[in-house]
């Protein structure tokens, strides 16, 4: 498969007189191939949005190479911009313009037939509200409008930053179906989101970023498999006795109230046979597979600690050659602080 997005060694820092230098992205790599629905995950302030902005030419990179649809970015971005639909963070629109007018102006500027406006409004479920002023829209409706603006070009590549932001459960499901139908039609999708269950449901590939660096990437099932500890949840009548027996069989066991968590067992038959031979009958034997959330929390160090407010992306600024480097995406910090 051909690479649709390639980022190698991307580095971006922001400078301010008051706060000094802040590294937002620190040698980040990303590869998205044609036809993928690629999830892009990271905690607040990890550099996701900065990466997407750099890729789309909205912020200048300090170092690194980027290309979109084979064209180096940002130098040759104009050559492929007509084939890329993108929304970055929560896009803002003129409140006094209607959705239809907003899209029409973009269509005119981009040389897209204005007949596409009603098609995309239909696609995102805004057909009947397209004549209303955007200032009357809810957050979810604005998000739909943003997705509509990205779809307007009939893109080959869709870059969506938090597209489900503000959507209700039905809207999230609609967005999921839309992504799938677009992927089925051959559109490559790069999807940044905090809703990990959604990513796991929709995406076939994933890249996880933390502190501006890539910490995991690959097929979703392969990334998850890498963190599979072959754990099983076991419910028996006498858990203490069962733990003793399993321990004697050389198995690692953790007792949790009235159940056991057994680790490092490939074949569950070992558990049921060991206990059954001693007259202990297994009531429940459930595999504990890692999900994206647990992998994400593990990789990004974002596990919540009781009574300890978690700081943005770990909260421990890494030391750099020029003093303390705080891994912070300014916009996302604002969201967290709000």
């Amino acid at each position: 498969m051909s690479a649709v997005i390639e980022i190698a060694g991307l580095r971006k820092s922001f400078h301010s007189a008051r706060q000094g230098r802040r590294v937002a992205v620190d040698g980040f790599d990303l590869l998205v191939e044609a036809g993928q629905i690629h999830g892009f995950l990271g905690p607040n302030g990890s550099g996701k949005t900065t990466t997407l902005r750099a890729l789309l030419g909205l912020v200048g990179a300090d170092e690194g190479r980027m290309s979109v649809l084979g064209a180096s970015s940002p130098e040759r971005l104009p050559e492929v911009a007509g084939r890329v639909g993108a929304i970055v963070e929560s896009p803002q629109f003129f409140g006094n313009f209607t959705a239809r007018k907003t899209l029409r102006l973009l269509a005119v500027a981009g040389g897209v037939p204005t007949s596409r406006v009603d098609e995309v409004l239909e696609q995102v479920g805004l057909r009947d509200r397209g004549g209303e002023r955007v200032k009357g829209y809810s957050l979810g409706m604005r998000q739909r409008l943003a997705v509509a603006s990205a779809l307007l070009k009939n893109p080959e590549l869709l870059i969506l930053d938090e597209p489900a932001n503000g959507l209700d459960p039905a809207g999230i499901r609609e967005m999921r179906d839309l992504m799938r139908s677009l992927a089925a039609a051959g559109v490559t999708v790069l999807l940044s989101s905090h809703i990990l269950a959604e990513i796991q449901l929709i995406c076939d590939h994933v890249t996880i970023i933390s502190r501006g660096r890539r910490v995991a990437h690959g097929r979703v099932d392969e990334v998850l498999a890498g963190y599979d500890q072959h754990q099983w949840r076991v419910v028996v009548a006498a858990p203490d006795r069962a733990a003793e027996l399993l321990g004697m069989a050389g198995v690692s066991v953790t007792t949790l109230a009235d159940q056991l968590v057994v680790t490092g067992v490939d074949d569950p038959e070992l558990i049921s046979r060991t206990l059954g031979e001693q007259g202990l009958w297994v009531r429940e034997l459930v595999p504990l597979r890692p999900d994206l959330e647990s992998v994400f929390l593990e990789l990004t160090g974002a596990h919540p600690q009781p009574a300890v407010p978690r700081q943005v992306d770990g909260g421990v600024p890494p030391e750099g050659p020029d003093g303390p480097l705080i891994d912070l995406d300014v916009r996302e910090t604002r969201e967290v602080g709000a």
Partner: protein
Amino acid sequence: MRLVRAEVERLAARRFVQLMVVLLLAAFAVTVVTTLAGSHRPSVAELTRAQAQAAEAVRELEMQHDRCLAIKAGTTTPVETDYIPRDCSEVDPALMERLPTSADYLSGVFVFGHEAEGLLYFLIAFLALFGFLVGASYIGADLNSGGVVNLLLWRPQRRAVLGAKLGTLLGAVLALAAVASAAYLAVFWLIGQFAGRPGQPDWAALGVTHGRGLVLVLLTAALGFAIATLGRHTSAALGTVAAYLVVWELGARLVFDILSVSRPERLMLSTYLGAWLAGEVRFFDSASCASVTETFCDASYTIGWAPGMVVLVGLTVALVLAAFAAFRRRDLI
């Protein structure tokens, strides 16, 4: 071209622009109505009386000039109330820019030739304000609301996007200013024809003032656009102008006055603005005559339209170039 088309639509759809156009029309309508209400076609008797008064005034000027010449020749003794200039050509009616006309003695009659220049200055002032505010809000609101980011996702060419916006703004403002001023003068000319007197307008002078006014309108629009681009917000442009007026035009002028700085007007933008629009401005420099006690000293000095143009165009071009340079390198977050 597509970008310009979209920008023209966007500009026309802006509420602020629509509001400013409505204000322009309202000011236009109020001026027309009040002029109409305060004017009438003069009767033959009124005209005859005004013409006689004008002729009398001209005759008095001629007599004053003749008396001046006679006093200088020593054939007449001056009295206390005589005004005797150094050179009698100063009071020579033949050399005067403008002689009294019947229009000066027609009460309640709108005389187009007499009023046209003042009306044009009023319109230019309004259009310059219009240009500045629309220029600043057009880009300021776009930068602030994320509209520019949306557009750059479609056309990732910053210079082209900003250039299309500036070009659209200047084209639209010029078109509106040209149409508005032509309509404005035409309506008042008609009022002069049918509800007053046409007078004898100096069309050449009006044309020059009109041309200079249109250039000024374009410059103020570009200035508003450039300052708002640099400051990323409409209010940056408004704040900059307010700060300049208070700190420099008022505050610094006071300080210069206290320190008796020579010719402080040369340091004020308002001087060059006035010089450009009026063709020339004359100031009095008391410091230049401070050491002269006995002989005549002309303390006045003038600044013409050419330095006015250089300063205004230079400032605008510098700010526009700075805005483009800043926008090209800026991180849009």
